[in-house]
């Protein structure tokens, strides 16, 4: 049974090695604290909510979409995304952007909008109207 273990073991060791190496290379961490996002040059996934009170901009010529994102602690960050406003953006409860902070703004390559799943968790209040 020696050959079996030599072959199997060799393959497992080689792939585990490559995998750990690549994992550290492509590893992207989730950050929900923007002070940390702004202090790293690594690619991260920043989670926050859209600041609706600040101006947003859809630039059709350069195909970018810029807006402000705020984390739980109230830190705001400008985000420029290579693309147009994604589906569901207006109704999203939270936004996950993947990219790097460039010093002035967060350059997002990817954007994921989390929508209120139905209205189950939505706060509905009585209004003054």
């Amino acid at each position: 049974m020696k050959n079996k273990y030599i072959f199997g073991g060799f393959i497992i060791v080689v792939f585990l090695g490559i995998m750990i190496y690549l994992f550290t290379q492509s590893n992207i961490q989730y950050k929900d604290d923007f002070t940390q996002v702004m202090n790293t040059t690594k690619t991260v996934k920043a989670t926050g909510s859209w600041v609706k009170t600040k101006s947003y901009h859809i630039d059709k010529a350069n195909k970018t979409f810029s807006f402000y994102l705020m984390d739980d602690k109230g830190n705001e960050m400008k985000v420029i995304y290579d693309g147009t406003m994604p589906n569901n953006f207006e109704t999203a409860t939270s936004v996950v952007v993947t990219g790097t902070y460039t010093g002035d703004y967060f350059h997002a390559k990817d954007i994921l909008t989390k929508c209120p799943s139905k209205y189950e968790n939505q706060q509905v209040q009585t209004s003054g109207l």
Partner: protein
Amino acid sequence: MIGTIVLVAALAFSLMSMVMYYLSFRGYKNAINYARIAYHGMAMLVIVASTLLWYALLTHQYEYKYVFSYSNNSLKTGFLLASFWGGQEGSFMLWLLLTSIIGIFLQSYASKRGDLEQRVMTVFTLATTFLLIMVSPWFKNPFEFIWTSPMFIELKSINPKYFNLSFIQSFLFTDQGSGNSFVQVNSDLRNLLANSGITLNQFIVDGRGLNPQLLNFWMQIHPPILFTGFSMATVPFSFAIAALMKNDYKDWVRQAFPWLLAGMGILGLGIMLGGYWAYEMLGWGGYWAWDPVENSSLIPWIVGVAGIHTLLVQRKTQVKGSIGKFVKTNLILCILTYVLVLYSTFLTRSGVLGDASVHSFVDPGMIVYLFLFFFIGTFILIGAGSIIYRWKYLSDPTQSEEGLISRELALFTASIVLIAAATIVIVGTSAPLFGHSVDTFFYNEMNLPIAIIIGLLNGLSLIIKWRDTGKKDVIKKSLPLLGVSVLISVLIILFGGISQLMIILLTFSTTFALVVNAEIAYKIIRGNKKMLGAYVAHIGISLFILGVIGSAVFTQEKDIDLVKNQSQSAFGYEMTFTDIYPIENNTKYEFNIDVKKGNTEYKVKPVMYISDFNNSLMRVPAILTLPTKDIYFSPLGYDDGTSSEVHGKQISVLIGNEFEFGNAKIKYNEFIKPDISQMMSGGDITMGTKLTVSYDGKDYNITPMIKRESNKFVYTPAEIKEANLKIEVQKIDPQSQKANFVVSKINGETQPTQPKEVLTLTASIKPFISLVWIGVVVMVFGFFISVARRLPESFIKSS
């Protein structure tokens, strides 16, 4: 109510069947009859419960939370039937239904093969029991009534003739943000309605409907096939545990083989259909995104396929009554396949991947999370525990070592490589559990060398023989095949202009596997066609990988602005956007694009619409399928020429305060209160704000207004042409004294005099993408040829 009772009864039958089968295994002969009756009773009850759920969906019984949440009146019958598995509860129900039906076949299969039935069914009924607990009233019951937990329902879903009921007022709520009104449905309201003789089915007249991304033809087909594959993975697991129970590892291999083949064939087809759905529907142009949901069904498939190869070795090496090689490997792989199906369910249903996927996962709550954890933990414990318990019996001392050049060792190596691939996908998919995430290049980079090795091993293992093969023999046989493979690869590489080393290697290894399998298939096609299975499956997977190379490496993509009636050229095609028109009762817009090359003209029709379901823009791509390539049109946006870029600001201001926009200062002076008498009589309500805008040394007084007509808000913005300013008041809150404004530039002023209609889209060329689909279909066909061959072999004369 009946549905819930039926499911609870089914749970009792399932438990009884499990206990009786176990007693029968322990020697109580009479118990097996009770066990069989209980199993069939359980299966019948599950079928009845499923029929009840379908009936509730077809007859729009919105008193059920599930029916309300996942269907509505406008769904056509096909989609109504498919909304059965539109949500979590229903997909567990579908899984249960298919597992129960498969169990009927399994029981009949096992009863004809010695003492197999008692053991196999003991394990199998444990699985059905767990699934039944999942849909029981304590967890994800599809028959839960809508009022059991308070739920906010939009007014449009409520029968308007009950609006004047006196007690309705205390259940009415308005969401300040959106201005929508809701009725809170809870047990109090239900009781009050019941007192007035009104049922909830009368009160709630429409449901929320399906997510628009699910409204696709494949929604009716993909989930049942995928879940059939998941359900069938229970069977090899049961066989493996059954073998461990009896401590006999010879016969189970042949008995489990057709089930594993069929299960993996169906699961493979299901995964591919999911990919095709994504390609056709989601509009990003690909079929595989390494999304957790996709990955989690791929992992058990890869492990199951690895198991097929080592099971084959064990079967081939069972000579003279020995149990064969790789006994432990086979037991572990069959157990692991099902455990990974459960793990995949855990990943995708427990809410742990919340931030990581486009599929929206609802957090099902702690208790379901713990139960799923318990479910998977139980099966891991049973599997691992029984293997450790029997460890010393699990090797065959009579087996000699595999030769260095033997098919046994090649197949074993191939399985290990497949497991390496599965491990990579598991690690990447599970990373979010630990707050990490991997980029898709992790999967691509890792699986590329694996695919190369697998192609080479595939070809090589078929050239070398079982047991030991002489080196000269191998070289003599492989040289002509290698020559043909090199020739074809060189042609592909030169013709396609491939320059990356890894892709060149992959092309060669895949071509090699294709040539070797095609040669063997050609030799035996006139002989026993049942022997073709493996070769057909291998040809399929080779074609698939060639399709992946073609579509992934050679895709060209371009963003194009198509001005109406002006032709543009891209990829050698003349494209003209000619028309936009409403379809499906004005709910969607279709764009017509003429695509021309030489004298051939095609028409493609991408679609865009605003979905009521989630109030967002949906873009449906159009695909032009040509013999050697697809041209893929994904709409990005449409500008009808009347508005320029969107540029605005939303701001909340306290009364008496100022804010700035550009060079203008805006002061919120006064709240124009609505007329109280009108408010009391329920008529339209008008309110507004008084603002002073200072711009260029001048002051302007404006009064943007809001009016509420029945349940709709009408906004009357104020404009100041001199300042190029438009102000709309969106919300006024008298309590906090704050108002929300949207300030923007007046549109149109900076516009060119000639409005242009522009359709922006991403066009891409995807060469040979059809090989991806064809390859998988051919592969699945091969699996089923093998099933036909291995089924008769599973009858073993009682030893």
